[in-house]
């Protein structure tokens, strides 16, 4: 086993592409080290990307925000501009694990770990976030929902690294929100989760909407029908009830140690309603 800390993304991609055995990227380590401890993975090569220039930064550009792959989630919460623009994404990122984990874990890691229950992913999908994927001599930008393909599986090729997550700058009258259900108040993996992102027109009606659900299917799902229900509404009671029904219907959950099919269906609808209500208020809706 080797541990290498490259200084450039190209070197990192080259190392990963060139490794003969199992290679793993280390950013926050909060998933990788747990999997190593449990004997689920024994990497031959660990590539620590934290020394790569720029990967530890959140950059604000004309188009929006670029969040580097090595930025710990705690730092997202400390960035007031990001917090103001994308409170839902930030609250999702800040729900991952404990304070201790917050100081290490990253949203890129959360995305690439490809758990259907990943906290930041529904919020990112709802936000229409994009991932910058760098490989040996390649660079492409894809929708975040295109990264995970199933539990623990991604569309990334050998040698590819997600360098950053891009979030658009905010249109006026926009708001997002993320809610998850966990049995305790902290430390659990989401049993069900919902991310909602809305933009309102000048009359306070929903102009555009994206809603994503977590932990109810093999990957986080974008519920197109939910957007259709929301658009044109002011989130009256009837709309919210329809939204809950559509979201419950969109779930393809399983029974497991964290929850039952019935529970996940029902609570997905409840969380969708509540998250939409919060996002609507954040967008200035009344």
């Amino acid at each position: 086993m080797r541990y290498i800390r490259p200084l450039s993304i190209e070197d990192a991609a080259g190392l990963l592409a060139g490794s003969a055995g199992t290679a793993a990227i280390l950013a926050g380590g909060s998933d990788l080290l747990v999997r190593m401890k449990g004997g689920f993975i024994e990497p031959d090569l660990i590539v620590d990307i934290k020394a790569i220039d720029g990967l530890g930064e959140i950059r604000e550009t004309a188009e929006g925000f670029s969040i580097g792959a090595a930025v710990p989630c705690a730092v997202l919460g400390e960035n007031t501009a990001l917090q103001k623009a994308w409170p839902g994404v930030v609250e999702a990122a800040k729900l991952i694990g404990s304070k201790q984990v917050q100081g290490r874990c990253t949203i890129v890691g959360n995305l690439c770990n490809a758990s259907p229950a990943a906290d930041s992913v529904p919020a990112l999908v709802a936000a229409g976030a994009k991932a910058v994927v760098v490989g040996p001599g390649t660079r492409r930008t894809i929708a975040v929902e295109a990264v995970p393909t199933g539990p623990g599986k991604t569309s990334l090729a050998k040698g590819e690294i997600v360098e950053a997550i891009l979030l658009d700058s905010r249109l006026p009258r926009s708001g997002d929100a993320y809610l998850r259900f966990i049995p305790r108040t902290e430390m659990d993996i989401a049993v069900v989760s919902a991310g909602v992102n809305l933009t309102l027109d000048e009359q306070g009606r929903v102009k555009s909407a994206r809603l994503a659900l977590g932990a109810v299917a093999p990957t986080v799902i974008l519920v197109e029908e939910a957007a259709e229900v929301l658009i044109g509404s002011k989130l009256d009671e009837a709309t919210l009830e329809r939204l809950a029904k559509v979201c419950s219907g969109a779930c393809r959950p399983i029974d497991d140690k964290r929850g039952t099919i019935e529970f996940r269906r029902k609570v997905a609808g409840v969380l969708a309603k509540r998250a939409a209500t919060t996002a609507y208020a954040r967008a200035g809706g009344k």
Partner: protein
Amino acid sequence: MAGVAVSTTINGDNVEFLCQPDETLLDVLRDRLGLTGAKEGCGTGDCGACSIILDDRLVCSCLVLGAEAEGRHVETIEGMAHGDRLHPLQQKFLEHAALQCGVCTPGFLMAAKDLLAKNPDPTEEEIRFGLAGNLCRCTGYDKIVRAVQDAASVMKGA
């Protein structure tokens, strides 16, 4: 498997060690450096008993590789008191009996220190959520929260 040579700062002292690439910082502290104050309760970041402060961030040392400590500043429970003068948190934990078995105590103290550094005047709710990454099975947390509240007021006055 080749060892990794690491040069780091622990509790203000320069320390050099050799570790395996897959060895956690917790194992390095405990098994190579004799700093057994950080405990392994789970090894998966779920209990906080191995909490340390790494470059001003509270982390679980079981989720950090020893190799990652290169060039960084590590604070452990062994560095919390100044000589024989206890940190106010340590003193208040004793006075409030905020420990029974005491195995979670080093982790709680590091977490509480980090919490008060970032938020010197926390509400009860902020303390409870700030310490939610540390499990205690003995106390029901009541006396821990009170000790942190008391330490916060002492430290503000200092």
